[in-house]
């Protein structure tokens, strides 16, 4: 009897895992399948490296599908956000791992995790009512810009960076701080020369995960980046890939090149992510 329940349980588990796997694989295949027809009308090179995006045929001019600006904006805003977030995030992680007592850590971790729970629309909303207004006052035309999106995105990335960085730092602190103390070296010196360098490898991994989140983020970025097909500059408007999809999906005619092109843009986003993952991984393995 026990053996039968064991077997049944195992079979159920295997089936569920199999179904999950098949479904997830199906999602990926489906996206690829929907994206491919785009390239019947537009060459891959034109799609990726030109910057004219006119999904609907105008008078006297055909439809154009070039997403170079969108790609550039996505990468630009993500890396900028990453840079801001990593500077603040590592600082906070240093405090949490090397200064805070267990008690404080127990309070601060859930506190920082709150950031991860806030819906992106709320971020976008606060971005519009606070950051954009601030920029407007300072004199940026209309206030919406790439920098505003990057700041907002940086805040959204913080919880992921902080939790994984402080986890690594804590481990390394436990391993090395006492040895440093035993040599009579100042704790902060040990932290900056031993513990932090020893943690870089895992910090890079945390950055990979965070960059994934940044590039896929739709609503918050869309609400403050201005949504204009321009090459990204720090204080200028631009438009990310995710925003294009979200804004135009509603109007794209089913089965049209426009429709498929939005899928292709999504696929480009995934491939981009993949390339960055592999790239950072390679840097990590080479340098460290």
């Amino acid at each position, binding site marked *: 009897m026990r053996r039968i329940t064991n077997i049944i349980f195992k079979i159920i588990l295997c089936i569920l895992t199999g179904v999950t796997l098949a479904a997830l694989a199906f999602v990926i295949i489906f996206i690829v399948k929907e994206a491919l027809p785009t390239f019947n009308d537009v060459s891959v090179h034109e799609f990726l490296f030109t910057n004219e995006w006119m999904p609907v045929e105008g008078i006297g001019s055909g439809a154009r599908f070039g997403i170079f600006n969108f790609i550039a904006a996505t990468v630009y805003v993500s890396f900028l956000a990453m840079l801001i977030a990593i500077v603040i995030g590592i600082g906070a992680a240093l405090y949490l791992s090397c200064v805070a007592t267990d008690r404080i850590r127990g309070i601060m971790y859930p506190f920082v995790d709150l950031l991860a729970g806030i819906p992106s629309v709320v971020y976008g909303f*606060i971005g519009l009512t606070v950051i954009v207004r601030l920029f407007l006052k300072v004199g940026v035309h209309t206030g919406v810009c790439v920098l505003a999106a990057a700041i907002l995105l940086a805040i959204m990335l913080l919880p992921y960076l902080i939790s994984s960085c402080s986890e690594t730092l804590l481990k390394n602190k436990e391993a090395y701080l006492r040895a440093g103390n035993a040599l009579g070296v100042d704790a902060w010196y040990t932290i900056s*020369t031993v513990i932090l360098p020893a943690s870089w490898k895992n910090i890079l991994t945390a950055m990979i995960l965070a960059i994934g989140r940044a590039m896929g983020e739709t609503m918050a970025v869309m609400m403050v980046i201005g949504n204009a097909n321009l090459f990204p500059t720090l204080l200028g408007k631009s438009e990310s890939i995710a925003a294009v999809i979200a804004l135009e999906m509603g109007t794209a005619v089913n089965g049209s090149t426009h429709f498929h092109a939005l899928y292709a843009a999504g696929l480009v986003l995934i491939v981009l992510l993949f390339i960055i993952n592999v790239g950072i991984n390679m840097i990590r393995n080479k340098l460290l």
Partner: protein
Amino acid sequence: MHIRGLFTKIWAYTGIIVVSVVIVFLFAFVFWKGGSTITWEFLSTPPAGLVLGSEGGILPAITGSLAFTLTAIVIGAVPAISTALYLVFFCKSRRMESMIHLVIQCIAGIPSIVLGLFSYSLFVRDLNFGRCILSSGIALGIMVLPFIEVRAEKTFRELNPAMIQSAYALGCNKTHTILTVVLPACRGELFSGIILGGCYAMGATAPMIFTGAVAFASNPTSLFEPAMALPLHLYLLVAQGHTSLDMAYGTAFVMMAVILISNVLVTMYARRRQREWKQ
């Protein structure tokens, strides 16, 4: 003190202060601005007004969000936890393990808007579900699946192997061990993974824009009809401009409150279990 050490110390303190200020500001700002909008009427009536939402309340958005979230949790959590159990306790082949991990990571990397796109084409268009809670729920479920799976797998792996092997050593089979030792021991973490996954699904707008969330609907009664959702409602209010700004703050207030309360509850629950049952 050595200059490098001093710099690191300043870095640490600045970092934590900036983060704390940001968090406190975000919640304080929304609660302060939205507090005056929150009345029983706001929470218990549907939106109204010439420009929709400029008057009335957000009741259908609350119930709608609840429906979306529950659907997503059911669709996402069950396969997520089964997969984690399979990987940790049954999977003997490394290749199988890394293949499953690869797929999960790929899905985790897919932007939520693309998942929305997928669900729209397959369920709304090809399978003729139309825009409905289920279509969105599936997209959201796929989105939270990796989130819950990664947490569950981590929890299972962090469980002291000696505890599991002790059960094996007493002659208990895997099923019994999982049901009576592993799941109870991980209950707190699994519960928190599911709740936080739920919050994640509740706040996600992108996957449901085309698949099931609409600008106005009554309280949902079945999985096959569209519904309102808090985040989309907020987005639309913001898009309408200044007329509905107070309502927007109120809607944001509700979402922030839900996030705050669920996080506090989850943390307290985990703490209590920890205190009672762990060293």
